């Protein structure tokens, strides 16, 4: 049996049936890591004590402590999520030695459900980037083609799932950081409605936009993982009290009569033709499944990226002020006085992209520019939100590409930051408006790189996008794994 080819739920079921042990799953994952991660570099840290944990979980499953369908399944965690006693670096030098003394809420939830944490995955530094190339600890490569990036910022998590180096992973999504790398790596990823998953213990990039979400091999795996991590948390004031969190049972395959809207502006210039063709193919499939697909117009499209980068950078400039060499993390070795310590620590501790956004954010909040930039962006956000509200008055689900192109070659993107930002065109509005979004693989381009389609729901309507994504996925059939032509 090739265990690495199983989905998380399949593995969980076999563990439950005692056909395989928790340890078998953990071993499989470590074998894959051993075999490939020197090249892929999805992980920043792996935990050998996962073997011991596997034995505990095995007992827990046998004595009925753990009943989750994902109990015993290995999972990887993006390195901006705090685990008590484990180094949490956000792929930044400034947190090179930071070991939190507390768990993120999601970690508590995973442990309670009996998942086995394998390690921490690479990312763009502080989740700022679209390629996982801004990591201070080396780049991650796309398992489909090692010359290409895995996307970002949750590139490590998505690459690890794609490479079979884990069954599941957690990522975080501030402007597309789960959905875009999921698309590049041919895996499935969800950005939940803002407030659905607690942000406690997620090192903040832009607090009003950040959400933790699942990455997995298919929709069912992601739905099952989302059920575990979603839920109200009193430690996060922006956490919502939701009761509609039974996602898995929504996956019925039936989308007859469901209304899909496609913003026509999303298919205009700038969209790669192969990506477009693949996208159009999905529309046909959905129609065949009995859904209605309609084009409509989104007039605020060209304002999404400007609003997003102003808001995200402003919040980031404030959120990252705490990294100053006083309480934790890196402190410059030589300095003269307090302010020099701050400057030397931060200048040496942060990478270029992070500094770029901190400077932009400091500027747009500064005296004399606050109204013209920051407030203007918040007003624009309100307009964008209003337009999406109107769209959801008509449609159940909106469809969009996850990215205008497939995974770029390593080294191409960072040359022109603005061009890189423009690549987030299809993903940022979801964060600005707090909406849920999912990316599902829908094809490959001529270079063999995966293409993903994004389904966007109204706030709290995860069920609709999961149902739609699952129905599409079922109709699409299995999706090949990297390095093989075959099926999973």
């Amino acid at each position, binding site marked *: 049996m090739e265990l690495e080819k199983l989905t998380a739920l399949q593995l969980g079921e076999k563990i439950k049936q005692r056909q395989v042990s928790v340890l078998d799953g953990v071993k499989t994952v470590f074998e894959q890591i051993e075999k490939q991660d020197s090249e892929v570099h999805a992980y920043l840290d792996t935990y050998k004590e996962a073997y011991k944990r596997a034995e505990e979980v095995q007992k827990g499953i046998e004595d009925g402590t753990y009943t989750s369908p994902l109990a015993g399944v290995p999972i990887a965690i993006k390195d901006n999520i705090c685990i008590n006693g484990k180094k949490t670096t956000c792929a930044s030098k400034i947190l090179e030695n930071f070991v939190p003394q507390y768990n993120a809420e999601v970690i508590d939830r995973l442990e309670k459900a009996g998942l086995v944490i394998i390690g921490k995955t690479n990312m763009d530094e502080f989740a700022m980037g679209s390629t996982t190339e801004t990591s201070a600890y080396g780049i991650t490569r796309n398992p489909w083609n090692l010359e290409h990036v895995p996307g970002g910022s949750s590139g490590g998590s998505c690459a690890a799932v794609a490479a079979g180096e884990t069954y599941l992973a957690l990522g975080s999504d501030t402007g597309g950081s789960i959905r875009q790398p999921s698309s590049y790596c041919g895996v499935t990823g969800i950005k939940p409605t803002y407030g659905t998953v607690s942000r406690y213990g997620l090192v903040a990039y832009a607090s009003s936009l950040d959400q933790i979400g699942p990455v997995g091999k298919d929709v069912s795996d992601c739905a099952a993982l989302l059920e575990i991590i979603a839920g109200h948390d009193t430690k996060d004031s922006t956490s919502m009290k939701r009761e509609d969190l039974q996602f898995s049972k929504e996956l019925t395959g039936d989308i007859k009569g469901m209304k899909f809207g496609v913003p026509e502006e999303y298919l205009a210039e700038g969209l790669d033709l192969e990506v477009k063709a693949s996208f159009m193919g999905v529309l046909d499939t959905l129609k065949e499944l009995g859904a209605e697909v309609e084009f409509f117009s989104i007039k605020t499209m060209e304002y999404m990226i400007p609003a997003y980068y102003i808001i995200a950078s402003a919040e980031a400039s404030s959120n990252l002020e705490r990294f100053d060499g006083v309480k*934790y993390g890196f402190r410059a070795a030589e300095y003269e006085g307090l302010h020099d310590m701050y400057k030397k620590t931060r200048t040496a501790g942060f990478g270029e992209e992070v500094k770029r956004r901190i400077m932009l954010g400091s500027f747009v909040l500064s005296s004399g520019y606050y109204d013209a930039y920051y407030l203007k962006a918040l007003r624009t956000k309100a307009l964008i939100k209003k337009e999406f509200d109107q769209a959801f008055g008509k449609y159940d689900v909106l469809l969009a590409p996850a990215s205008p192109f497939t995974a770029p070659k390593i080294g191409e993107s960072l040359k022109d930051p603005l061009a890189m930002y423009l690549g987030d065109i299809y993903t940022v509005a979801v964060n600005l408006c707090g909406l849920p979004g999912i990316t599902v693989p829908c094809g490959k381009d001529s270079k063999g790189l995966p293409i993903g389609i994004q389904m966007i729901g109204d706030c709290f309507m995860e069920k609709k996008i999961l149902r739609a994504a699952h129905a599409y996925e079922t109709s699409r059939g299995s999706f090949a794994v990297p390095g093989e032509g075959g099926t999973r």
Partner: protein
Amino acid sequence: MKQYETVIGLEVHVELATKTKIFCGCSTEFGGAPNTHTCPVCTGMPGSLPVLNKKVVEFALKAGLAANCQIHQYCKFDRKNYFYPDNPQNYQISQLYLPICHDGWVEIETSAGKKKIRIHEMHMEEDAGKLIHDEWEDCSLVDYNRSGVPLIEIVSEPDMRSSEEVIAYLEKLRCMMQYLGVSDCKLQEGSMRADVNLSVREVGAEEFGTRTEMKNLNSFKAIARAIEGERERQIELIEEGKAVTQETRRWDDNKEYSYAMRSKEDAKDYRYFPDPDLPPIHISDAWIEKIKAEQPELREAKQARYQEEYGLPAYDAGILTESRHLAGLFEETAAIYGNAKKTANWFMGEVLRLTKDKAMDPEQVSFSPKHLADLLVMVEKSEVSPQNAKKVFEKVFAEDIDPVAYIEEHGLKIVEDTGLLEETINRILDANPGPLSELLGGKDKVMGFFVGQIMKEMKGKANPASARETLMKEVEKRK
């Protein structure tokens, strides 16, 4: 020489008397060992998030309503960004754009009469940690126990014109906060702090002069001195034809001089923006009504009531209500004893005398009202002499002893033992044949002499009235 007027506005920080910090479940208790009241939230750990303490909003509303403020029923927290080690996130969570309370006033009274001081706003914010300067290693050490302790900042309009008005305003605020129970306002523990904004202008001028802000003012006396010092400094500059610079100055109370706090690293651009981690607060009409209904009787109302209900003079009512704590003791004692007027006399006399003699803060007075009431009842029933009662009260005041038991144990109770009294009287009559014959001869003036002798012999345990009565009887027998 030109006449100058001082224009003063105050920013007063009041630490709220909540059990926990504003955004986390750490204790606000004063005086713990460094960093023992800290958690990821109040030390700015990555990934930690603030959750607002409801009591802070309630206390801010209480304070605002008591100061006649309008309420922003939709209010938000903003981040104030600046780097300093006592500020663990390098931003302080405060309120700029929509402070919870605004546009209120309080009335002060000085030798010149009554005056309204307008309040621009009151907002909620978190306190910073404490920095200690380590002389040995020439470095500073940070303790985050105070980090995240809730504050309200009360910003006045520039309505004050003298240090006397400033002190009256501060005392007014302090009394109000203590009455409301929202803060103990102890200057020495830093739970009340004031920054002074001051400018001078020629009398009659319409425009304000350039103002400076003075920080580091730890006592009312220091505030008064700083105001005088800064007024003189500014007038001197103007007289010399120099300009006053708008700046923040640090008052050194030892040197009685202020220094400009200037640094090129101090950009003074706080980049306030709404804190995305904290959803806005909605304050319903019902909530405001509830707070209003629960407001305690404030000093002015109490003072009026004491005059009306207890018939106390305005002066006494004023003194008794200076401290809510003392007023509370007074009211409880009066309720148990049943005579407010006599209780008031006792407070005005004995309680305040002892408080002053022992240099105590009125808040520290802590005897049981029941004990004082019992004592007053004994005085009324002539079971203890007023002189002994005062001595016993010193014990009640200092150690809260039970006066009834104490008087019994120490034999201070006035005896109704007529046998003993008769015996004593006859002994005294026998020992003083001269005065006795005068008395028998109808000279009533010597009565006083005999009563005094009797009381002396009885060591105060006799009731003067019955002593006089028994004396008359015994003298009658000898006629």
